Structure formats: structure tokens, C-alpha cells
């Protein structure tokens, strides 16, 4: 049912996701200018009115919310790399912003490009010398193999199982309808609509849950909830100031949901950190106030990530031991601060106070002299963007792709509910169920093939 498309709008991050000053998100194909216009507000005029091969200043919006300030290059067919209309968005670098833009484009009608697809189009449209055909074919073959294995291997077992299970549910219901349409004398659909609506609503909830719990999806959207812990004067506020001062794009002050906590969101090399209880830290630097162990416990509970500071100049104190003892299974980075003075803390010593050091990284830093702090972002990437595989572009892009597919699957299921309410016949909305089924299949690399026909025959007794 999903037709292979030749010239639909495709988008991709063409600069790579590695943190850098500028990121480039590129789009090509019929209608890509209209899609860009849906999320870009130019300072002057409309993108679609602009001449080809011009560059413009503007902002990316997600609804009313400004996402980034950008420069956008408009290139109309045929004088482009793909010989199609091309829009190139130059935004701030870093995975958060670029993924966000990619996600917005995908949500407005662009398809996330397969690897090598821009090159393929360039070739098919006569932009690349015919003698390069072999090379282009090899590129497509190797890239797609790589992407497929990478994309599927990074799906967690539980997520995979849940998608398989949702698909099974969907397929049964599609087959029920189709069996009823094909053999009305054996399978009666008259009473089925109510059951179907409640079933589909249930499935939507499950898809929703996937969307919201989608590992990196959540982290990309909301950031990593991070608590900074340490005894007084250990350098918490310096670290906080370093992090806040380091961010390049978005800072928001949000009154937290829990009493007396203040959250600050910072973008650390493209990673969004939501720092909790920064009020306490700021205060503690003025009023010398020990951070109570109960407060620390609260922070441990709420945070995805703990940054625990130790003072190298004084060694591990009784208070430090208590804080280390609390880490237990939490993802944590232990920062040995003040490494400009003599070493008083050994890694092995720290580990001896930990119940479990699986999720713990230990780094020596000097906030004051700006030593070692740049390592923090890489460690966080390793810890959060993927547990098993090294954090890379492919993982992030396929995450956006997966989330987009989940969104689409959900949208088609909502169509089903609307259609039933509007009295639309079964044969029309069952197609939406099927598309939803196919989209979910794409996430886990499963074809639809003859699934419906097979399900009909295996679950429903029909025929003369």
C-alpha cells in the first residue's frame, strides 16, 4: 500500500549532528518550499515569494514557540544539487536544535530521507555523470544496509515487543473488518463498530505512551533532569555558573513543580540539561548553609542524572560518604574538583563507598581553571543517548524518524475514530488502520506483505 515515491519532499541533517557552531538541515523535492514556510517566519516577506538562490534571515517556530534563529537558503529547480526545489536551513549546531527542526519538517509533510537519497536523486535527475552509476548504486546498497541494521539494533527489546504487540492487535482488527467485508455471510460487522472504537482508543493510548516514553525523544524534548550535589563550598555554584554560562541557545527559568525548587534549562553542547534545585545552590554560596541529607535525598529521587562534587583538597569526608552511599543505581558523574591542588582522592577510594558503580563515571576537573569540564557533555551523551551503542548521528536521526512514524500511526488511528463518528464506511477507515500498521512496522523493519490476508485466514473461518 505504501508506494515507493520518486519526488516527494525529503529532509535530512546534512551537517552531521556533532556539536558545532552551525548546523544545516536540508530539504529537497516537490512542495518542500511550502513545508519550510509552515515553520519558518522570515524577517521580511514570505519564502515562497523569494527569488531562487537567495539567502534570508528568519526564525523557526513550533506553533507559537520560537525554536531557533536561522538563515535559510532557497534554491528552486532545476539548478540545484538534486535538480529539485531545495531549501537549506542554517541553524545553531547541536543535536537538540537540528533534531527539533527535522522533526518539525517531518511533521509538516516531509519524509526523513533514506541514507544516500539526495545523491540518488541527483543521479536520477541527471545531475551526476552517468559513469558514476556503479558508485551511486554501491552507495545506496551499503548505506541502506548500514542504516537498517543500525536503526533496528538500537531499538530496545521492550519497545520492540510493545510495537509488535500493538501491531498484532491492529492486524486482528483490520482482518476482522476485511473478513467481514469479504465474507459478510460468515462475519457480521453490524455490532462491531463500538468494539472497534474502544479498541482503537486503547491502541492510541499505547502508541501515546510510546511516543512520550520514547527514550531519547523525551530527553531531546524535555532535557535531562540533573541535580548538583555536594557539601558546602565544594564548587557547586561555580559549576552551575559554568553550565549556565556555557549554554549557547536556550535558557529558561521555570518555577518548578515542587515547592522551593527552581529549574534552569541549559543547552550543553546540544544536550538539554534541566537543572533542579538551583535555588538552593545559589543561596548556599551566600549564606553558608549545609545542604541537609534529606534535601539531597529529594534531589536523588527527582533527577535522571546526579553531578556529585568532591573536594580534592580535603579528601572524602563523612558527609561525602553519605552522599556517595545514596547514589545506588542512579546515573551519576562524580566530579573531583580542585584538581589544581595535590591529589587527596583516589578513584578506588570513591568506588569503595558506592553500592554499585555501573552507572557512575568519575572525572577530575577544575572548574576554576576550566580543566576537564568539557568532558562532561561527552560523558552525558554516552550515558543517555544510548546505553549500548556509541552516540552517533544515525541513532539520533532514526529516533526522529521513529517518533515521526509513531506520530503518523497515531494520526491515522485518530482518523479511524473520526470516521466511525462521521458514519464513514468500514472499507474506507480500515485503510487508515492499515497505514498505521505499516508505519509501526517501518519502525521495527517489518514489511506488511500479505499480513492482512494471512491474518484473515488464520483467525477467521470463512468461505464456502
Amino acid at each position, binding site marked *: *500500500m505504501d508506494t515507493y515515491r520518486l519526488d516527494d519532499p525529503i529532509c535530512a541533517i546534512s551537517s552531521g549532528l556533532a556539536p558545532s557552531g552551525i548546523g544545516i538541515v536540508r530539504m529537497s523535492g516537490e512542495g518542500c518550499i511550502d513545508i519550510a514556510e509552515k515553520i519558518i517566519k522570515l524577517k521580511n516577506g514570505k519564502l515562497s515569494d523569494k527569488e531562487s538562490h537567495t539567502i534570508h534571515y528568519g526564525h523557526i517556530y513550533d506553533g507559537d514557540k520560537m525554536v531557533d534563529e536561522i538563515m535559510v537558503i532557497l534554491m528552486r529547480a532545476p539548478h540545484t544539487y538534486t535538480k529539485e526545489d531545495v531549501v537549506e536551513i542554517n541553524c545553531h549546531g547541536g543535536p537538540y536544535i537540528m533534531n527539533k527542526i527535522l522533526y518539525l519538517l517531518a511533521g509538516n509533510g516531509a519524509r526523513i530521507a533514506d541514507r544516500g537519497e539526495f545523491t540518488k536523486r541527483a543521479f*536520477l535527475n541527471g545531475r551526476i555523470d552517468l559513469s558514476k552509476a556503479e558508485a551511486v*548504486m554501491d552507495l545506496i*546498497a551499503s548505506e541502506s544496509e548500514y542504516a537498517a541494521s543500525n536503526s533496528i539494533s538500537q531499538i530496545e527489546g521492550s519497545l520492540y515487543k510493545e510495537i509488535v504487540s500493538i501491531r498484532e492487535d491492529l492486524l486482528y482488527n483490520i482482518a476482522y473488518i476485511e473478513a467481514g467485508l*469479504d465474507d459478510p455471510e460468515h462475519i457480521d460487522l453490524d455490532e462491531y463498530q463500538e468494539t472497534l472504537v474502544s479498541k482503537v482508543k486503547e491502541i492510541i493510548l499505547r502508541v501515546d505512551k510510546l511516543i512520550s516514553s520514547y527514550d531519547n525523544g523525551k530527553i531531546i524534548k524535555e532535557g535531562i533532569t540533573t541535580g548538583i550535589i555536594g557539601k558546602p563550598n565544594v564548587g557547586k555554584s561555580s559549576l552551575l555558573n559554568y553550565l549556565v554560562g556555557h549554554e549557547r541557545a536556550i535558557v529558561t527559568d521555570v518555577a518548578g513543580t515542587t515547592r522551593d525548587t527552581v529549574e534552569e534549562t541549559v543547552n550543553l553542547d546540544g544536550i538539554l540539561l534541566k537543572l533542579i534545585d538551583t535555588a538552593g545552590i545559589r543561596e548556599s554560596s551566600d549564606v553558608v548553609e549545609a545542604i541537609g541529607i534529606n534535601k539531597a535525598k529529594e534531589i536523588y529521587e527527582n533527577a535522571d542524572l546526579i553531578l556529585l562534587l568532591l573536594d580534592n583538597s580535603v579528601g572524602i569526608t563523612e558527609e561525602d560518604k553519605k552522599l556517595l552511599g545514596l547514589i545506588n543505581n542512579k546515573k551519576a558523574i562524580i566530579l573531583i574538583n580542585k584538581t589544581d591542588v595535590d591529589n587527596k582522592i583516589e578513584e578506588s577510594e570513591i568506588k569503595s563507598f558506592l553500592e554499585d558503580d555501573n552507572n557512575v563515571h568519575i572525572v577530575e576537573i577544575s572548574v576554576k581553571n576550566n580543566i576537564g569540564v568539557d568532558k562532561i557533555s561527552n560523558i552525558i551523551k554516552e550515558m543517555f543517548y544510548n546505553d549500548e551503542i556509541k552516540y552517533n548521528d544515525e541513532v539520533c536521526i532514526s529516533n526522529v524518524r521513529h517518533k515521526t512514524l509513531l506520530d503518523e500511526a497515531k494520526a491515522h488511528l485518530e482518523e479511524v475514530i473520526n470516521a466511525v463518528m*462521521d458514519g464513514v*464506511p468500514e472499507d474506507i477507515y480500515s485503510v487508515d488502520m492499515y497505514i498505521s500498521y505499516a508505519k509501526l512496522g517501518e519502525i521495527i523493519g517489518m514489511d506488511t506483505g500479505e499480513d492482512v490476508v494471512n491474518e484473515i485466514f488464520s483467525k477467521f*473461518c470463512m468461505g464456502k
Partner: protein
Amino acid sequence: MNNSIIETDICVIGAGHAGCEAALAAARLGFKVTIFTVSVESIAMMPCNPNIGGTSKGHLVRELDALGGEMGVNIDKSFIQSKMLNASKGPAVHSLRAQADKSVYTLNMRKVLENTEGITIKQGEVCEILTEEVDGVNTVCGVKIYTGTIYKCKAAIICSGTYLNSRCLCGESITYTGPNGLQSATHLGESLTKLGIGLRRFKTGTPARMDKRSLDFSKMEIQYGDERVVPFSFTTDPESVQIEQVPVYMTYTNEETHKIIRANLDRSPIYAGIIEGTGPRYCPSIEDKVVKFADKERHQVFIEPEGLYTNEMYVGGMSSSMPEDVQIAMYHTVPGLENAVIVRNAYAIEYDCLCPGELTLSLELKKVSGLFSAGQFNGSSGYEEAAAQGLMAGINAARKLSDLDPVILTRSDAYIGVLIDDLVTLENNEPYRMMTSRAEYRLMLRQDNADLRLTKIGHDIGLISDERYEKFELKKQMIEDEIDRLKNTFVGANAKVQEFLKSMNSSPLKTAFSLADLMCRQELDYELIAPIDPDRKPLPSDVKEQVYIQIKYEGYIEKQLQQINHFKKLENKKLSSDIDYNEISSLRLEARQKLNKFKPENIGQASRISGVTPADISVLLVYLTQKK
């Protein structure tokens, strides 16, 4: 031995539903056709169920009719009950199904064949396909029948149904015959094998026929036909089919039935492993139903008349290959069948048919030029599927002789296109039955608009007369005009309109609305808005139906048309049959093997072959561009 030699243009081997359509199409296109059958009495025989049509099969018949085929006309002359199935569902799945009077159907078709100029009917078994090398290509030059007589021809169409090396099984009793004890074709298979054509074994089955007088209908539910019958053929006068209809009956199996079946499974040739062929999941035997759906307490059984001039009743839903004693015992447990006298036993039949990958989309075989095939031989099941292929094979054989390009209907043109594409492109490990869920563009491929989709093609081919075509054009014009009028006639928010809407439980207007927009409201339709549409002219009911459907489902139809546009872009990218896919090293190994086996005719078809991935398609596109 002195063999007689007879000259003809096209030989059609078999006179079932595929053979009849093939012969008629080729003859009507001006060719001399000889149609062979093992028995003239078995022309257009219905050896299984007494129905024409049904879900998606009804679509096939209407499409065939729009292209100039015979089945629709013939069933309109031979039916004894008719129903529009799924009438309460969406228009795309409405499907006509008629009960046929089997003997009348056969006789009517035989009469048409006998009186069509250019057709010669010959009783005799074809044993050999004769070929010669023409420009290095193995090409059909004749067929040889059992007596040794040679029919020289330029094309042949195999429509051997279930007769090729067939054997019938009823428990331990095995007979080497075709259906109904008719002679099986035992030599042709060998000839085909010699030509390098791959054959495989399929299986199907049929239930018992019972003497009406021995059945107790008071224990069954009765089912009548529609009050107003819709004809199959677009040429049939709707008034001529408003006949007195006969009812059919329904009853159920029960635990007792299932117990007997379970107790005797070891005597079923399928479960005992005697049958090697694969049966259709769509028509499971009662043994299969009981085993595979063990938790079902009962199965429906339809008791349908075989005709008006016979007492035989068809027992739908209970086909079987059990031994006769088990059959009698199990049938007798069913309410109403306690004392049933079985006229013909249920049996399973095994037969040879084509392996996947042998056919082209024109239904010509890849290995022998001029050799076409249609029907069950191609791995399908069902009269309608057979007839549709027969028509296309007949048309394309005739066109080949006229040096014209074949007519290939695509998946977005017709169910016939879906059927043939699936038969040619998929592995299909069982007899293939048409289903609405197989047609991805089914919203466009409705039975009601088969004429709008295909009459022009039928006319271009030469099977639709100018007179019929003009009539069709007139209908088309009426539909377009009326839709245009409804879209451009606005009603204001005046008292009369508001009053009317109120009476229909429809919300009042705030601004002017077109009649077309009003019709789209869930609670309204074309007929219902008549009171506020005084300028309306009386229109034929088929025109009104089109107007209503096309306006009501416009949004969905638009969406589907867009999909069809994308689909066509790939179908239009042709692949030559002499590409050696082994030479394209970027294709995955599985893709290379599959593509070489199926030799798809375009990129779209290639993308539907199982084991060919989107990346393989990308590689093929690059390859094609390079070759250009």
C-alpha cells in the same frame, strides 16, 4: 500415420469459464478460433458452487462486462436469485452475487459460442503444443489432439482448469478424472514440461449434492434474493431481470458433526498425507474448519439449488474429501439433513498448474511465444477469476496476431489488473481467490463504476460496439452535468430550506451552501435533498447513483487519485525482459534471484516481488537511468 492438418488462427484449450471468454474475445476481434473440450456438454460448466459473483468476484464480472466479456450477460439470462452483498456498507464493497441455474448457464453459453462467427468447437483432448523456432524464439505453431490431428495456429491459450493430470479423492477411493468424473488431460502436462514450463500441484474441493426431496427445510433459515435485482451486465435492461426468485436455506453443523469428523481424521486423504497439493484457505474443507477452528461450536451450511430443472441441492460450507460412509454420517448430523440422500459425494481434486514466475502480465508464457494461459491453470480459483483472465488472454492473443501491444490493466485500473498482477508477481502457494482487501485502490475500483473505468478500453480494443459506446458516453455526460449542477446550485438560508433541514434533523444554514455540500452531510443524500432542489430533472437510477457516490466520497476519492498518480510513475518505468540481474552487483543476492525468476515488466511490479527491498528499487532506478 497420416495426420489430418487443419488450419486455424488461435487454439483455445479448454471450454470452461476462461476458455469461453478467451474464444469469444479472439473470435469477436476477427480471428478463426478452435476451442477444444473433453466434452461439449461441459462447456461453461460450474462444477462447484452454483453462484456467479460475490464479494470482489462481482466486481470482476462487471469489469469483464464493461470490456466486452460474456459472463455478465450470461448470468443475467441464467440466474434464479440475486443479491447485492454488503449493501449496508460502503459503495466500494457492494458486490453482486447470483444463484445460477447451472444447466441453463451452460446451455446459454454454449449457444453463444456455437453462434459466434469464427468459433469452431471441437471435442477432443489436446496432447501437445507444437512449436518452431522463429528468430531464435520458441513459438507456437499448432496443437496436436489425441487422434493425431494437428491444428496449425499462431497462438494457443491454455485454459485447462483442474483437468491437467487431475485425480479426485473421496476418502480411500481415488479416481483419475477431472471434475464430475469427466476425462482428465493426461498428456498436455508432459508436453509443457518438455517446453521447459514449470508445473506444480494444487488442490481444491467441493461439497456433496443432495436430493431436495430428502431435506427438511422447516429446520433451516430461509434466505431470499433482493426485492429489486440489479443486473450484472451494463447492457441488460434492468426490468428484464425482475424475475421470480427462489430462496436458499441455511443450517448449521454442531458438536456431533465435529465429533464424527475428528474421529475419522485419519481417513481424510489430506490429514493422512495422501494429498500433496495445496488447498485454498478461502474454501477450507469442513475437516479443515473443525481442526483449525476447534473452538467454534458450529459452522454455517448453505443449501442452494443447482437449478430449476433438478432436485439437486448444493451443500455450501461442507466440502470434504472424507470417505463416503463418514460423509453420510456427518451430513446426517446437520439439522434438516438427517435423512439426506446424497446424489454426488463431496470430493477433493488435485491438478497441475503453473509455477510462479512463468507468466507475463499479458498472460503470455515467458518461455513460448504465442502461448497464453488463463484460469485455474494460472493458479487462481473461481469462475469469475477464470473468466476475467480468459478475456484478457483472448484479447492479447488476438492483439499479438494483429501486431498490437498487449492490453495490460494495472492495479489502479481494475480488479482484473490486481488479479493478474498478483498471479504474475506473487508466489501464491494456494489457489488464488480475489478479495477486496487485495485491491489497494478499491475505493476507485467499484462495481458501480466499472463501465466508467473500462468501457473506453473495451471500445478501443474493439469488443464494445459504437452504439454501446455512444450510450455510455451519454451516461457519462449526464453524470458530469448533474455533479456540475449540484456543485454550482446554491441554496440560501431561507425559511423553506431551514424548515427542510430542521425536518431532516440537520443543522440550519448560516450562509449559502451548494447542494453538493449539503449532500455530503451524514444525514442527507441525493434523494433526500430533492424537496429543496426544484430544478432537478429526472435521471436514470444508475446516473443518480454515480452522482451520489462521486459527491459523497469526493475527499476520499481525491486522496486515492493522488496515490494512484504516485503508483503510475513507477508502473511507467519499464524493465526489459533481457536484463540479467546477476550483473547488477549492488542488488542483494535474494533480490537478484527473485528479479531473474520473475523478470518484472516495470519498477512498480518489481517493488511488489517479495524479497525486493526499497533499496533494491533505488539501485534499479539508478541502473535504468544509466542504461537510457
